[in-house]
């Protein structure tokens, strides 16, 4: 469904991605793990079309979208739930969700829109009764729910999740992962970026490990969970082995 070929990206004059290639197939959850600064978010931003300085090729369902605008990609169904949630703070929860359906809102009736918003509220019971509250007044966990709900409102064909568990307490982390699992059971296609490697591997089919801008490991999630290389990617090479 998504194919990234030899992607290079530059950030402040430095190469953040070095010939990254990966693919995501219809209906699977692929996770991309790696330490801070490995280039994970840059990669997602390239796929979303909001990172300018890049070279390489991105294909979506066979079509080359390397040059497509961010807007066009959302229209095709590539939707990102950004790191740190990035909600529209002064807007209400409902309005935030509605912004998720921005490009579709012209084509659907307001009754239908409301029904979909209600659907999201049911999916995330924590948000019920919070519809008219401003987004910045919510707790971190609730904000993450709104962010994911906002992403779902755009009816994504490919959902890019950028560190959904970041900064959340363990109990909320569990809840986020449960939600992602639910989405998997609905046969949605997801590219999940996580620092919580074991959590992400547990719910994904396949995984890539990114280290300083390069893919250093890839394979089935189960194999990688056993692989010592994952540990090295986070904690560095053994001191004693040198």
């Amino acid at each position, binding site marked *: 469904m998504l194919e990234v070929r030899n992607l290079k990206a530059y*950030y*402040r*004059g*430095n*190469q*953040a991605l070095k010939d990254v290639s990966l693919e995501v197939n219809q209906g699977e959850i692929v996770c991309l793990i790696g*330490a*801070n*600064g490995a280039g994970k978010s840059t990669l997602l931003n390239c796929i979303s079309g909001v990172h300018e300085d890049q070279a390489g090729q991105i294909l979506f369902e066979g079509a080359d979208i390397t040059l497509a605008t961010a807007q066009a990609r959302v229209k095709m169904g590539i939707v990102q739930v950004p790191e740190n949630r990035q909600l529209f703070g002064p807007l209400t929860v409902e309005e935030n969700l509605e912004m998720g359906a921005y490009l579709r809102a012209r084509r659907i009736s307001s009754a239908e829109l409301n029904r979909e918003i209600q659907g999201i509220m049911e999916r995330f019971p924590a948000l019920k009764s919070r519809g008219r509250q401003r987004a910045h007044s919510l707790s*971190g966990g609730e904000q993450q729910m709104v962010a994911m709900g906002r992403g779902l409102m755009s009816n994504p064909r490919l959902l890019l999740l950028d*560190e959904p*568990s*970041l*900064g959340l*307490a*363990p109990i909320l*982390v*569990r809840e986020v*992962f449960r939600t992602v699992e639910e989405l998997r059971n609905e046969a949605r296609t997801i590219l999940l970026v*996580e*620092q*919580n*490697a*074991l*959590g*992400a591997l*547990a719910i994904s089919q396949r995984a890539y490990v990114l280290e*300083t801008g390069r893919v250093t490991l890839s394979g089935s999630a189960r194999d990688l969970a056993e692989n010592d290389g*994952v*540990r090295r990617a*986070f*904690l*560095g*090479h*053994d*001191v*004693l082995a*040198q």
Partner: protein
Amino acid sequence: MAQELHSKRAPVSLIGLAAAIVLFPVLTQNPYYLNVANIIGLNTIVVVGLNLLIGYAGQISLGHAAFYGLGAYISGVLTVTYNVSPWIALLSAVCVTALLAMLIGIPTLKLHGHYLVMATLGFNLIINIIMVQWDSVTGGPSGFPGIPNLSVGQWSFDSDRKMYYLIWGVVFVAIVLALNLVRSRPGRALRALHGSELAAGCFGVDTKSYKVKIFVLSAIYASLAGSLYAHYLTFISPKTFDIFFSVELVTMVIVGGMGSIWGVLFGTIFLTSLPNVLHFFDEYKDIIYGLILVLILIFMPQGVGVAIREKWWKRGASEGPADAARGLVASGRSESASVERAKDGAAGVAPLAVGDSKPILRIRNVSLNFGGLMALADVSCDIPDGAITALIGPNGAGKTTMINVISGIHRRHRGRLFFGETETRGLNPHQMAKMGMARTFQNVELFDHMTVLENVMVGMHAGTRNEFLHSLFRLPGFTREERLIEGRAWEVLAFVGLASKGLFPAFGLSFGEQKRLEIARALVTAPRLVLLDEPVAGLNMTESLEIAGLIKKIRSQGISVLLVEHDMNVVMKISDKIIVLNFGTKIAEGQPEEIQRNEQVLSAYLGGVA
């Protein structure tokens, strides 16, 4: 070449300017040209001052026409109505204007953002309306006539030509003083402020007071020009000093190039003569003026003067003698890096005997709450003296918060910190700097438009003394301190391997070099402890290794290092001690191999859904 560009360009240009000033009236006999030249000169005085404010303090004033007008009206009214000597009137005007500027500047410049521009806009409108309405004193909208010429004894400045020499003499002095200020400790501090207020603050630059001082200085320039204007034309009217003239003055600075004294000289000449040229276009002249302004701002936003200078700088950076020198230093650098590596091999991984000596920094029960979020919870640890300590942890663990607590940026924490024997509660970053603690920043905070050398020189701000008056008039002692600062800065640049880049602008450096420059700037104060916030983030393998080598070289100088870093290969390789944070609490500390085997650390990093 670059060196010449910097140290000798100014005198050469000044001699050129002096020659041009002297020769111009010889070459033209046309009194109209002399008249235009005089007006240009008066505008230049205001604009050179305004440029210090805009280009160096990063603040805009839309009130300089009012300061100019105050100079003119106070001179006019005092000499005509009260028969005061013009020179005394001129001084009185300067004093009144300076005082008003201070009154406006102090409350607005202590705030972030562009409040000065709004306040001065209002101020200018008020002053202008008073000039129109208070007709018993100012003569009202029809103006104020009969102002005497300036004179010295019996000799009077009563012709365009005589005034020309007076005005341009003042212009010359104004430019010399401005250049003096720019190339001095306060001047560098001001430019640093413009580049990164955060970093400038950390090096002890008292940002607020410098902004007020420069604003007052620029108002004095304007008032002085206003007084000269009144005595030159002998007639003044409110229309000259309205808000549109303030806008024009700022436009001259922006079109010429904020921060470039020679650029704004060009901007003033260009924009002052433009209406005279556009006179041929008669009623279309405003349209054309507006269009030119918009086009220059769209396509040359940094101003014509700066655009030219930067082209020159870039050319200098890509060719020039530095090429040879760069090779030299680069090889020296890799040499030192490989020496370091060889030493590692020999010494194996034997860590420094940590814990024997007294810790340089003791952290006791530090907690910090950010709007309900516990960023740090009861953290206690010791940072050993003369060693490299790493602070690590997953994203959001509180590492940078801890660094900010240690360096005094966050001061609302609970718990205690001891630097050596001293408790550091309530000390701000530059007080910490004075005590011997220096730092670098996660998102490189360099002063982009200053040279590499000047960046390092700003690092010495806190320990040195030259102030405004010293710098403006080059008072005794000024040069000695300047030399001292510069010498020390070169030393440190050589230490980090950047000596060959000293005279190039910081924005031209590669990312790796920028990181090293930040380290140099921290080292220049001869600190006992340096805090490095992600020194190798975003670097490639070779660059990371070089920085790692440099960090060890710092330790070998007896300086303690505390580093926050995500690149575990570097951390594990060079650290003597590692402290691990997760969710704001310390979960482990110890030597690298202990940390790598620690189950709690593993699960903090690799996560998992319990």
